[in-house]
């Protein structure tokens, strides 16, 4: 045994390594996994096994091999290859069954391992690619980081430079300020120096002047001095006198008196002027006040009624004030109370006037805004309200249709569990046909009524259009703007009628006519909407298994003709019924219709050619509807 062990050791160890690698695969690093993969893929298993056997067991050492294998297998928990020994001495026999079982188990194990290996490989690949991606990301981010870091450094540098500049500028500014201060000081010092020098010079000059004066006076030369030769006689013959000397004090007082008189006169004059100005201003104020009162008095009732602010009371105050101040005597009293009263009342009234003007301004602006619609009888707001209302109604109708459809589908779904039910259905159909005939006659009647109504509506609309008058009761009929809304309203109304009337039995083939008849006048969208029920119905009828369509009507995309409608109305749910068109009867096995299948069918349906076949069954009714549509106004 010991020899064997040594001989087989490398292979065994490699195998065991494989196993242990497999078991610990999840914990292995990617690189080691990779190498493992390489190892595994490089050595095909079958070949490996073959070579193993050729080397391991020969003719001579079968016994040993078996015993070795038995030993090995038992250590791994497999049952022993030998049969249960009956006696101690008897040689144990090889249990073929056990061997085979072991082999099988080993093979299963091998297969499992291979599968696991495959999984691991794919996972490895995934992880590898993830790793790559992450590495790329990391590199990119690193780059980004680097660039941003560089940017930051650049910005910091710039900031630093700017700060430096700023500091320099500050320094310069300070220097300049210092300079200015210095210059001012210089100017001031120079000015004082100049003044000082001037004073010195002036003193010198004065001295010289004195000297000169003395010299001139000392000469006593009368010839040089100026003299009046001939005195002027006064008109009255008297000699005038200057009254100098002697009673200087009294003269001085007289002069003072005169001076003060002059000053007093001046001040009095100025006061008079100011008084006059004041009076003028008061007059203006008073006049303004009166005018304000007269202006505001017709308005005063309104503010009082509103009573939202104190304007009413203010006005009454103002009136009282006016009564008081209208007395002329009050005017000339320039006492403070009167002044205050006047200014206060003026202020109040001014406030009222201001608010009033503002109000008027607001009104004017409003009127201006509305001005455009004044020509039309119905304002835009009304239009919008009306259209909103209509849209709401349409929405409601659509929802109603939807719920009805859902209910119907549920009903149908429960009904068509089996193909065999189709047989039963035929019996029902007969019954229902009878019932439907009755209903159809009822329908026809109603249709006639509708036709009549419609005609009268259109007549009325035309008449109204000609007269350009609008009755408030029927705002829908007015103006071409409202025409569409009207039509929508009508359509929705018809729909409602339809839904109310019937239990929406798909087998009522005649419904179509009604719809097409009424939808003809409206645009394409409404035509497609209303032509749907009949398009759906012929399939059901022709195939004898209309139930099957129900499952497929789960909000499939609309066909090209309805796509416009979807854009405009955006209510695909209402059109779900049309999708029935696109499904051929063979494909309508409810359980097997997957997502892909429906998609395919839809794409097929978008081609007109594929639809033709479906249409053929109902071509007669279809054309019928066309004809009816053309008849409509």
């Amino acid at each position, binding site marked *: 045994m010991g020899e064997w062990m040594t001989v087989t050791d490398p292979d065994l160890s490699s195998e065991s390594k494989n196993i242990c690698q497999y078991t610990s695969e999840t914990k292995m690093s990617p690189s080691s996994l990779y190498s493992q993969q390489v190892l595994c893929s490089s050595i095909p298993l079958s070949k490996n096994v073959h070579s193993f056997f050729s080397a391991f067991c020969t003719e001579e050492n079968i016994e040993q091999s078996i015993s070795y294998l038995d030993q090995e297998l038992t250590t791994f928990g497999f049952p022993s290859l030998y049969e249960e020994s009956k006696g101690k001495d008897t040689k144990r026999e090889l249990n073929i069954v056990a061997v085979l079982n072991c082999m099988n188990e080993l093979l299963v194990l091998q297969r499992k391992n291979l599968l696991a290996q495959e999984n691991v490989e794919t996972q490895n690949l995934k992880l590898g690619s993830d790793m790559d991606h992450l590495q790329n990301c990391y590199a990119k981010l690193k780059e980004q980081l680097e660039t941003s870091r560089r940017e930051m450094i650049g910005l910091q540098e710039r900031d630093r430079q700017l700060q430096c500049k700023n500091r320099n500028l500050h320094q310069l500014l300070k220097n300049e300020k210092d300079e200015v201060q210095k210059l*001012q000081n210089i*100017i001031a010092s120079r*000015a004082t120096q100049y*003044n000082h020098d*001037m*004073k010195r010079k*002036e*003193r010198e000059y004065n001295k010289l*002047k004195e000297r*000169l*004066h003395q010299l*001139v006076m000392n000469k006593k030369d009368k010839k*040089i*001095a*100026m003299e*009046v030769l001939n*005195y*002027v*006689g*006064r008109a009255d013959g008297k*000699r*005038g*006198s*200057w*009254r*100098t000397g002697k009673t*200087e004090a009294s*003269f*001085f007082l007289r*002069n*003072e008196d*005169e*001076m*003060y008189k*002059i*000053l007093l006169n*001046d001040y009095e004059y100025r006061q008079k002027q100011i008084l006059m100005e004041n009076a003028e201003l008061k007059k203006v104020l008073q006049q303004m006040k009166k005018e304000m009162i007269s202006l505001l008095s017709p308005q005063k009732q309104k503010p009082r009624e509103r009573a939202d602010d104190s304007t009413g009371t203010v006005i009454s105050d103002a009136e009282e004030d006016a009564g008081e101040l209208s007395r002329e005597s009050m005017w000339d009293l320039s006492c403070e109370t009167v002044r205050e009263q006047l200014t206060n009342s003026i202020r109040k009234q001014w406030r009222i006037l201001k608010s009033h003007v503002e109000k008027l301004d607001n009104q004017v602006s409003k009127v201006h805004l509305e001005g455009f619609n004044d020509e039309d009888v119905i304002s835009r707001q009304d239009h919008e309200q009306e259209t909103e209302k209509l849209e709401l109604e349409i929405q409601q109708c659509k929802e109603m249709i939807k719920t009805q459809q859902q209910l119907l589908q549920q009903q149908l779904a429960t009904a068509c569990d089996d193909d065999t039910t189709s047989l039963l259905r035929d019996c029902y159909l007969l019954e229902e046909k009878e019932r439907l005939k009755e209903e159809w006659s009822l329908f026809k009647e109603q249709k006639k009524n509708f036709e009549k109504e419609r005609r009268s509506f259109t007549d009325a609309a035309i008449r109204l259009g000609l007269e350009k008058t609008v009755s408030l009761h029927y705002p829908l009929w007015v103006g071409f703007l409202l025409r569409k809304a009207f039509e929508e309203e009508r359509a929705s109304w018809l729909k409602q009628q339809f839904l109310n009337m019937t239990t929406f039995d798909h087998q009522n083939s005649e419904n179509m006519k009604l719809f097409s008849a009424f939808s003809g006048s409206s645009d394409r969208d409404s035509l497609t909407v209303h032509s749907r029920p009949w398009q759906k119905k012929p399939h059901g009828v022709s195939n004898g298994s209309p139930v099957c369509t129900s499952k497929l009507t789960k909000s499939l995309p609309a066909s090209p003709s309805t796509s416009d409608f979807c854009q405009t109305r955006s209510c695909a749910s209402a059109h779900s019924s049309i999708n029935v068109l696109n499904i051929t009867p063979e494909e309508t096995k409810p359980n097997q219709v997957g997502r892909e299948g429906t998609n395919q069918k839809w794409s097929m349906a978008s081609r007109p050619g594929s639809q033709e076949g479906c249409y053929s069954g109902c071509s007669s009714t279809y054309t019928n509807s066309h004809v009816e549509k053309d008849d409509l106004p």
Partner: protein
Amino acid sequence: MNFSEVFKLSSLLCKFSPDGKYLASCVQYRLVIRDVNTLQILQLYTCLDQIQHIEWSADSLFILCAMYKRGLVQLRITVWSLCTKSVSYIKYPKACQQGIAFTRDGRYMALAERRDCKDHVSVFVCSDWQLLRHFDTETQDLAGIEWAPNGCVLAVWDTCLEYKVLLYSLDGRLLSAYCAYEWSLGVKSVAWSPSSQFLAVGSYDGKVRILNHVTWKMITEFGHPATVNNPKIVVYKEAEKNPRLALGRLAFPPPRAAAGPASTTESKYEVASAPVSLQAVKPVADRANPRIGVGALAFSPDNYFLATRSDSVPNAVWIWDIQKLRLFVVLEQLCPVRSFQWDPQQPRLAICTGGSKVYLWSPAGCVSVQVPGEGDFQVLSLCWHFSGDSLALLSKDHFCLCFLETGERVGTAFGRPGDHT
């Protein structure tokens, strides 16, 4: 508009008597008194020397002629009585730009004095030359004094080195002191409005500041920029008119008049459109008395307008609307404005530029008038007769009277601004 014949004149000495009856003019040492209406010589006096100054007495009965050459040194003010032998002396008068000022009614005289290197103002009663008030002023070097027309407020301004305007009441109280700015050159000219309501102060910064008489604070300031941007302001530009081109035919040989000096060619006013740049001179910085600042100011007699001249834009006269306190009209002449004077009776401004034309502006428009006569009559100065009917135009050697039609009013006599465009 009529012109008298041209009379001889010297030293620009020509003055209407206060009562408007006479006209005194000097030719060398002769004094000629004429009748204003007939221009006939009423009296002819001959003096011993060349007359340097003449002055009418307030009652138009006397006239004073000054011959400084014959004078003697006087370091005081001497007041002689003409009817008595009395003589009064006033010491320490200050020799400055405008050191003496009489009130309009002649009742008081203010005199700037300088004693002990300090400025003082003395107010005298003119009837007996009593000193009424004496006070020192807060000035470095007083440059001028001027009474308000109502005689109750005295404006005192400092030398141009310092912007300072002081206002004193007649009784010597300091009413207010005004200083617009420091350091640079200050007040250049001062004018009271005839109503005593405003004091206009022109300064070296090219602005006129208007002070009011209630608070003595500045109401507004008028700048004198060399460009007028406001399209509301009418700018009249004097333009030379070429008569040959105007007539549209060429004479050969060209007439003498056309070939003559530019001053004899006619000129007219054109209304310049919105942004007008006026001709400005660059002040020479390194010389004393720079040609900057508002050098001349005059209120119209009705207080409505103020005419100013900025020395850095010498060709232009600014006329300001005092009611609205804004610029009203700018007149730009071809030559520097010598002087301007308001008509004493109505808002009418006469301007001369030293050329042979006289310019008249009124709110209705403006006109340029060629002074007729042989040769060049260069109008250096002008003075209005107090009635506003005539105007004396003075040149270096001659003078003439210009009669303005009394019958026709300004509006019709002068072209309206629209006529020129």
